[in-house]
């Protein structure tokens, strides 16, 4: 029998770290792709920043900052969502899912490991992007409340992880089409959350979706902190909304995932060629 003491928190943390280490090893072997993806993200952020530069001189700094912060935040949040949602699709594709899911590790620990990886990886990517953007544009962050922006990012991570968990179920129940569906979901969040524009411009029938998308609150709060230097007290309503969404979405996402896993184990869909 193995050394893992049932229920030992340290033991579980260590076994969750297995996922972080594994994913790190995987990207080490795919360095070429990593470089391509990072460059793409940087170029994308720069392009969007230049759209702001192209406008009138008045309000230039705010406009560029508005767009660039959208690109950076969306970059981070979509990596977070993608890494969590695709973790299962990935293992299916590799054919390792049965092995990983047969380990004496509660699914929550597995998912915790995946989320820790997603956060660490997302942060590294966003910092690279941020550096490139600050070098390219003469952005003044003198009045910004950087601490508040970081707090917003942390609070919104919870909600995005929750959505990722719920979306991770799709490849589990539909091996062929699940992965595509997560992309559609991601695209809708991008559309309704006001990443590059104020949600006020959305047609009335789309607006309600913006209220339930956590990204809406993330972007609003992060921009208030970066552009207007809003204090944490002023950000509080949005932060609370994010924490609340996270508190709902994580358990719900995990619950949906567990149902999906049971369904897959009943119907024989865990197999690589379901």
């Amino acid at each position, binding site marked *: *029998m*193995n*050394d*893992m*003491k*049932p229920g030992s928190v340290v*033991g579980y943390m*260590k*076994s969750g*770290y*297995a996922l972080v*280490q*594994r994913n790190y*090893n*995987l990207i080490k*072997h*795919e360095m070429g792709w990593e470089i391509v993806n990072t460059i793409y993200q940087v170029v994308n952020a720069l392009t969007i920043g230049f759209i702001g530069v192209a406008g009138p001189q008045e309000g230039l700094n705010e406009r560029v900052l508005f767009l660039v912060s959208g690109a950076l935040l969306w970059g981070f949040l979509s990596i977070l969502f993608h890494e969590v949602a695709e973790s299962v699709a990935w293992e299916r594709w*590799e*054919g*390792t899912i*049965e*092995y*990983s*899911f*047969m*380990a*004496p*590790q*509660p699914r929550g620990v597995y998912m915790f490991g995946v989320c820790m990886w997603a956060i660490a990886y997302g942060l590294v990517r966003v910092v690279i992007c941020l550096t490139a953007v600050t070098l390219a544009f003469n952005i003044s962050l003198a009045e910004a409340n950087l601490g508040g922006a970081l707090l917003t990012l942390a609070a919104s991570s919870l909600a995005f992880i929750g959505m990722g968990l719920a979306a991770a179920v799709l490849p589990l129940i539909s091996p062929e089409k699940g992965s595509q569906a997560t992309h559609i979901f991601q695209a809708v969040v991008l559309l309704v959350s006001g990443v590059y524009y104020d949600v006020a411009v959305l047609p009335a029938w789309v607006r309600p979706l913006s209220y339930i998308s956590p990204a809406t609150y993330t972007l609003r709060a992060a921009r208030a902190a970066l552009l207007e230097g809003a204090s944490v007290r002023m950000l509080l309503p949005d932060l609370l909304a994010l924490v609340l969404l996270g508190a709902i979405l994580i358990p719900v996402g995990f619950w949906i995932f567990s149902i999906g896993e*049971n369904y897959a*184990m*009943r*119907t*024989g869909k*865990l197999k*690589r060629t379901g």
Partner: protein
Amino acid sequence: MTAAIQCYHACKSFKESVRKTEKAEAGSRDRRAHRRIADFILPSKVTVEAVKDVSFDVKRGEIFGILGPNGSGKSTLIRMISTLLIPDSGTVRVFGKDVVEDRLEVRRYINRVSVEAAFFKRLSATENLEYAARLYGLDPKEGLLKAKAILARLGFPNSKVDVSLENLSRGMQQKVAIARALMTAPVALLLDEPTTGLDPVSKRDVQDFVLDVRNTHDTTVILTTHDMEEADRLCDRIAVIHDGEFVALDTPENLKRQCANGNGHLPNLEEVFFRLTGRSPNEWETEGEDE
């Protein structure tokens, strides 16, 4: 004392979608368009009964063989014992723990080697083994040391431990899979065709190792194989499964005796297999001639 692995009336069936149009097209050309569209949207499902009412006990320290033709339900049975498939009905217990109710506990006892090499193919053997060690809560260094000792015993070249799995031969991958499973010191070991794809020497090495593990650690082993000699050599008892049903369960000797014909000649296990699964090589030849 309770049995190490108990399986009572276990059943498992799958739904497979079949596009009727594709089936029918060859025969009749008169398929209405709306029928085709309906089939495309809602393909009809056929039920495949992979395991039908299978019951058996495996004693602690026993090597229990499951033989059967392709698609007879061996892997499905192994998957149910490994907590990867939930039985439709019946119960499966490992050391008294139910594979559905006490899933996590069962997982602490078992490990499985499957036919398909389930690896991250870009990663090396070392990286894959390190992942496995951490996943199972082992100290990664100790786990690796242990796995490498097993690999050395199986004749895995040390120069290949840091090569991507995708660049290893199938037999080498299989050895890594065996080392990965045994590294966690399971008390119940589920081997689904562990020696398929191995050369005769490697096969022997694996067989000796399985016997050794059982003898020194009292490990309970369930083994499926298409190699009759291997089954004869390793298994204390053998079940023959055919179309999801056990058609025989006994020691290799008794199985041979049961299938002996009048002239006192004891058949080998291969002949027993043909007899019990109702498919002899001779039948095959005559069928071929008919066409």
